[in-house]
């Protein structure tokens, strides 16, 4: 029975329906973009660390990052699978033992954790082992440490998930605080991300043409690796140094933590299941303002977005990460690409990165009608023009793209990747792109909204997929033109004119496609 349930959890998590794909496509694009940056950096930094004979430091820092990721992942997975999952209540109505459901969920989390751990070790320590040409024992030990790290992270994550659950329950009752905490978490994550990437970039940069580093950087790398005492034990295992200490600490510690976590999570899981039917929602009477119709519609749009965990996380993370991701991508490409291809590539990379992130961020427009669920009918019965209601939805969703886009542009100018004239040229170009892309997405969702009887908070998956794919094609065309044109045309104004031509052509096509339908939309 336990393995049948594990199979069911796996099926649920890897369902390949159109909606599932659409649901995950944006985070996947986002993740792939981040991973691409990381893998390229890892390859170059791996080479650099090997050249400097900093293998221990490289492995120690990599494993520290892995442990952090895995503990966070495990906390999220434990809360999602054990404490906040509705399927347990469904299973409990069937002739299945509570302990079997619990064990199946634990095994499912464990499998996911192990795949994540081993995959990460392959691209970091594995890649490094290939660059440094280590033997078979090194790679065999990778299997061993992947098991120890999985057990350790699962134990630590499982124990920490209980206090985190209490914090989440508290935040769910305090919406503003919830948004602040989400923003803070995203900010902390990206601060850490920037720090790591900057470290890699400085090593790549410093070793590009020489085989030595300045002493200050050497000390900084050694000091950083020295702080991560526990992660250092894994590089000891891999390199065969201090075997008694490394095995003697890591294996028992992982064993103790995972055993403790098993019993703590089991106690909490059983308790939550028995309390599940109790309704503990607290009510506080709030003074709700009566507004002008347009403002009321705008307020409702934002309330619905920011009260949905899925939507608010997407909105805030996109808004916060766009400037950082645009800057980091441009920086990495500028470091590794400028010398090979030439400085002219930087402008094109800026445009391409901005356009791609605009499409990802603006995808919220593609589910704005679907998000209303079955209540979308109100759009047609309210004494307020449907066209204006659609316009309000476009404005509400596009603002979330426009603000981080403008900030990204300012960051690129401030860091010298764009000139002032390039700033203005791309600002208006991409603002037009945001409006056209948003309009296309809203109209598409209005034409064929997708909602089920029971709102899940992530409706409109097919429409999001469609609008995102179309947008990405146009973004790539704009980006490639921006990369190629400076090499062909000496006059930048002609390049700008060509880019505006593409965006205006896109606007005309979108207008023609939607013209008839928009005219028929009720006033």
């Amino acid at each position, binding site marked *: 029975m336990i393995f049948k349930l594990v199979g069911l959890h796996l099926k649920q998590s890897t369902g390949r329906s159109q909606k599932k794909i659409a649901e995950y496509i944006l985070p996947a694009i986002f993740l792939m973009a981040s991973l691409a940056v990381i893998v390229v950096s890892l390859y170059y930094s791996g080479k650099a660390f090997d050249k400097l004979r900093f293998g221990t430091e490289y492995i120690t820092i990599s494993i520290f990052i892995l442990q952090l990721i895995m503990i966070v992942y495990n906390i999220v997975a434990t809360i999602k699978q054990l404490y906040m999952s509705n399927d347990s209540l469904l299973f409990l109505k069937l002739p299945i033992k509570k302990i079997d459901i619990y064990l199946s969920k634990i095994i499912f989390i464990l499998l996911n954790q192990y795949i994540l751990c081993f995959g990460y070790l392959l691209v970091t320590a594995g890649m490094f082992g290939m660059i440094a040409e280590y033997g078979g024992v090194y790679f065999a030990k990778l299997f061993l440490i992947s098991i120890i790290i999985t057990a350790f992270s699962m134990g630590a994550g499982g124990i920490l998930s209980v206090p985190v659950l209490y914090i989440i329950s508290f935040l769910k009752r305090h919406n503003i605080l919830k948004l602040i905490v989400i923003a803070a978490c995203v900010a902390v994550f990206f601060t850490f991300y920037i720090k790591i990437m900057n470290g890699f970039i400085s090593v790549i940069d410093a070793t590009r043409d020489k085989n030595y580093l300045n002493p200050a950087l050497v000390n900084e790398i050694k000091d950083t690796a020295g702080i991560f005492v526990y992660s250092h034990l894994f590089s000891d295992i891999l390199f065969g140094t201090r075997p008694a200490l490394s095995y003697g600490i890591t294996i028992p510690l992982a064993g103790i933590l995972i055993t403790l976590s098993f019993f703590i999570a089991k106690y909490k899981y059983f308790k939550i299941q028995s309390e599940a039917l109790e309704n503990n929602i607290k009510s506080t009477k709030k003074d*709700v303002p*009566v507004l002008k*119709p347009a403002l009321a*519609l705008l307020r*409702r749009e934002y309330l619905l977005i920011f009260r949905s965990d899925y939507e608010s996380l997407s909105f805030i993370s996109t808004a916060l990460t766009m400037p950082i991701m645009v800057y980091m991508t441009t920086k990495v490409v500028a470091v590794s690409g400028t010398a090979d291809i030439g400085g002219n590539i930087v402008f094109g990379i800026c445009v391409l990165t901005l356009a791609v992130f605009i499409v990802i961020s603006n995808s919220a427009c593609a589910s704005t009608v679907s998000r209303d669920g079955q*209540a979308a009918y109100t759009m*047609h*019965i309210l004494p307020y023009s449907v066209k204006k209601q659609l316009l309000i939805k476009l404005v509400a969703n596009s603002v979330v793209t426009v603000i981080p886009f403008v900030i990204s542009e300012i960051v690129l100018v401030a860091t010298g990747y764009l000139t002032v004239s390039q700033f203005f040229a791309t600002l208006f170009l991409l603002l037009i792109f945001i409006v056209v892309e948003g309009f296309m997405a809203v109209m598409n969702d209005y034409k064929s909204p997708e909602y089920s009887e029971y709102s899940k908070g992530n409706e409109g998956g097919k429409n999001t997929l469609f609008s995102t794919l179309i947008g990405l094609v146009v973004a790539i065309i704009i980006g490639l033109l921006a990369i190629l044109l400076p090499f062909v045309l000496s006059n930048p104004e002609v390049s700008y004119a060509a880019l505006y031509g593409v965006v205006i052509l896109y606007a005309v096509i979108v207008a023609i496609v939607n013209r008839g339908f928009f005219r028929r939309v009720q006033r």
Partner: protein
Amino acid sequence: MLQVSNLSKTYKGSDKKAVNNLSFEVKEGEIFGLLGLNGAGKSTAFKCITGIQPFDEGSVSVCGYDIIKDEMQAKQNYAFIPDNHAVFEGLTGREYITFMASVYNVDKETMNKRIDRFVEMFNSGSYLDNPIRSYSHGMKQKVAIMGGIIHYPKLWILDEPLLGLDPKSIKQIQTFMREYAQMGNSILFSSHILDTVSKMCDRVLIIDHGETKGLIDIKGKKENGENVNLDEIFFSLVEE
């Protein structure tokens, strides 16, 4: 109050009319029932009448306003509660009602008075400030009603309003519907529960396969001392 004339609607891809040449009038202060089996065309008729769906032929006027030509004035004069009781689940009950009040230009003082009245009527004070997604079926229906009629429209249209409700909620909503009609407003509602329609309605239009099968003046018959057996009438008309 409501004038429906020769209303016809065919869905794309179908060769059958979902509503065929439907005509009726709802008078002031009247509770008017639209009765039919599942798939008879009641919901389609309501969607056309309220302007949610376009129709092919005919006309609809609410308080003298044509639903196509004078769309906004017509919409200002009715409230529609669909059969799925759909409301914005991310809002609280009070936020939903206030949102509807804002769009219908109801001032705050009037809105608060009406909310107090609704709370008393539906005994809903305990949950109005909770998120709608935590509500039961009946609670959602009551909040949908409160939000829908916060502007006290002349015409109130309800599609299967009592579907899936517990006896207490049914009683509360029926009582409120009667009081609302007694204030001079009109109610048009659909149902396939014959007993409810028979007790609640002044007149009933029976439809089948989108077509009118008969108009029964229940109130008139009762006033004339006639015994109205709606079951018998309904099945004789529908089975034909």
